């Protein structure tokens, strides 16, 4: 009986300390020190929250850069992968269909960057490779009636290089790139270009 009581009291006390006080204290410090990150890294455009810098969102049509395909329909609260095995016939069919669709969009027979035809592990991958961004540039330039070199320059400015040139690999954040693209279009219109 004494054993049972000790166990029960111990787990309740540990529960109070580590299940309640610990997360609360961490929340307090994070909210003070890193409020933007601690609240989901939300991005605004024109005063309106349009998404999280860390979460891919769906972009359709030729006027925006597209993120990688998502196995979960870009559901931010339900991340997940396709979990298709490398020998699964469905995987090959999916990749082929996506590649063909890209070639149709671009109107050429160029080989498609692999990231654009494969779903990521989270289904929310916010990044594409610089090559995948440059691949989409002609489509975006044409539909927005902007010169290609401006789009290429925009991409170059949005490449996040590896930390210290070592850690990780260069990526482009799709949402940030698209928001900058909208600003670029607006500026061009304003200057009568």
């Amino acid at each position: 009986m004494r054993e049972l009581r000790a166990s029960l009291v111990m787990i309740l006390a540990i529960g109070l300390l580590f299940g309640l006080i610990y997360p609360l204290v961490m929340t307090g410090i994070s909210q003070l020190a890193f409020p933007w990150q601690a609240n989901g890294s939300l991005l605004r455009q024109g005063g309106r929250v349009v998404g999280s810098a860390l979460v891919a969102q769906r972009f359709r049509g030729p006027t925006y850069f597209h993120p990688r395909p998502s196995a979960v329909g870009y559901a931010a609260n339900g991340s997940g992968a396709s979990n298709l095995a490398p020998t699964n016939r469905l995987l090959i069919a999916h990749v082929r269909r996506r590649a063909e669709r890209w070639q149709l969009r671009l109107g050429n027979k160029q080989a498609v960057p692999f990231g654009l035809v494969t779903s990521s592990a989270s289904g929310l991958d916010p990044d594409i490779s610089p090559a995948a961004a440059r691949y989409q540039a002609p489509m975006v330039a044409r539909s927005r009636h902007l010169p290609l070199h401006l789009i290429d320059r925009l991409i170059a400015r949005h490449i996040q290089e590896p930390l210290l040139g070592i850690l990780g690999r260069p990526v482009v954040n799709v949402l940030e790139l698209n928001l900058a693209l909208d600003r670029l279009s607006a500026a061009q219109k304003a200057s009568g270009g």
Partner: protein
Amino acid sequence: MPAAHVAELVIYFGIVLLLMVPLGRYMARVYQGEVWLARWLGPLERILYKVAGVDPAAEQPWYRYAAQLLVFQLVSGLGLYAILRLQQFLPLNPQRLGPLPPAVAFNTAVSFLTNTNWQAYSGEAQLSYFSQMALIVQQFVSPAVGLAVAVALFRGIARQSSKTIGNFYRDLVRGLLYVLLPLVIPFALLLSWQGVPQSLAPYHPVTTVQGQVQQIPGGPAAAMTSIMMIGSNGGGYFGANNADPLENPSALSNLIVWVMILLVPFATVFTYGEMVGSRRQAWTIFAVMLTVLLAGFALTWNSSRAVGPRLAALPVRSSSGNMVGVEERFGPFLSSLYLPATTGVSNGSVNSAFDSANPVAGMVALADLMLGCITPGGDGAGMYGILFHVLFIVFLAGLMVGRTPEFLGKKISIREAKLVMIGLLITPVAILLLAAPAAVLPASLASVSNPGPHGLSQILYAYSSGVANNGSAFGGFGAALPYSAIMVGVAMFLGRYLIILPALAIAGSLAAKTSAPVTAGTLPTSGWMFGLLLLSSVLVVAGLSFFPALALGPVAEHFALWAGQLFPLH
């Protein structure tokens, strides 16, 4: 390998190598001496003993230690099961979620009790905040229990003619307050700084640029991720675990969580060296663990750098390697580096989708689990796991040279040898006996999501992950279906307690012995010769047990992939 990758490896491993020895020695002081942190947390420690009515100075024989551990686990487990079944009547349930189904609740309670964190439930859709908090509590308790068992075994090896091996509650509480707590706080803040949410706010509904509605998650994700990594738990706040950009946002956060996976497991090796007074042996054991880890990485990276001929034949640029189920910010390289760490430790978090990994990469993960997750293994669990192999080799080598086997001066008798065999064989026996019926029964096959040999790999992986208390999965496997939920639950239970009990029994039996002086005829238990013997024990026990099963699963899939064979066949 490009220079940047070499530099990356140096940084990743360098940080762990720099931190592990001081941390290991500090941990030895936590369990057998005093630490400066006790000046601040000492009152809290004493309050915990006082309210629970335990005397931390009362030393226990092994069976009392084990009994107290089991009663504590039973009470915690039943409590957790009750919370998951009754969450609709409990506070902090704003979405008015109903109870978890019985099979899934049983699976989840065992899963978090045993440091496995196999996730048959869907956190976002099925668990109230209160239930999530109950899981976080077990994420602290289960590694503390693992460390307690490990240090009890270390004491058993170190002590001379002693009837006792320590006090369970003292080891538990000191592990929580002086090892886990001071580590999780700075790491939680680092993760939060990198972008992992840490709030009390509900999910934030957002209308995207093109008008989609997204629910951006909030909640105490950084706090949970921190203990999930430090405590070799692996059960994530989000569905995609450490592949989710909100849980592992950047290349820097990936470095941080990778270090967190390996830190305490490797440090425990040096805690052992301090407590048994043989730093040389600690380095030998470390070298064996590191060898398996590096070999696993080399195989994984080599396999992930290419895609099969059927994918390569499509009009795509696949030369940089397999990106299916891989995040752009990590790529095949950092995903390959993560895989053998999370499966070598019984961590089980993932930063890529293992189900879509190439067959050899998937087999490395599977093989790590089949070794019992001992390279370097979970918090505490890795060290007591590999000590079974150490004792096994001492016994075997002793028999071969015709001398009484001795380990650090203590004679290894039939009783210890029998206990060692239980601890060594439970992993292969439980995995194979549970996976065999699962591979034929229709109720189990409903969980399988991929056709062909990969389907068998999914089943093998589920039970190996359960028995090894790892918790990673081939994610397509339907873990929530009743048969799989219950049987994987059984796997996790067997894999935890049928190793803990013999470990404590060995601790008790070794503590009672006296060391004889080492002579020229004693088998040295450190150095490269012993390291090689230990490595072969680790590999041969698993190799002999699992080769047929691996041949039918990942090996068959490997040859099919490179022959361009897809499944289903037509």
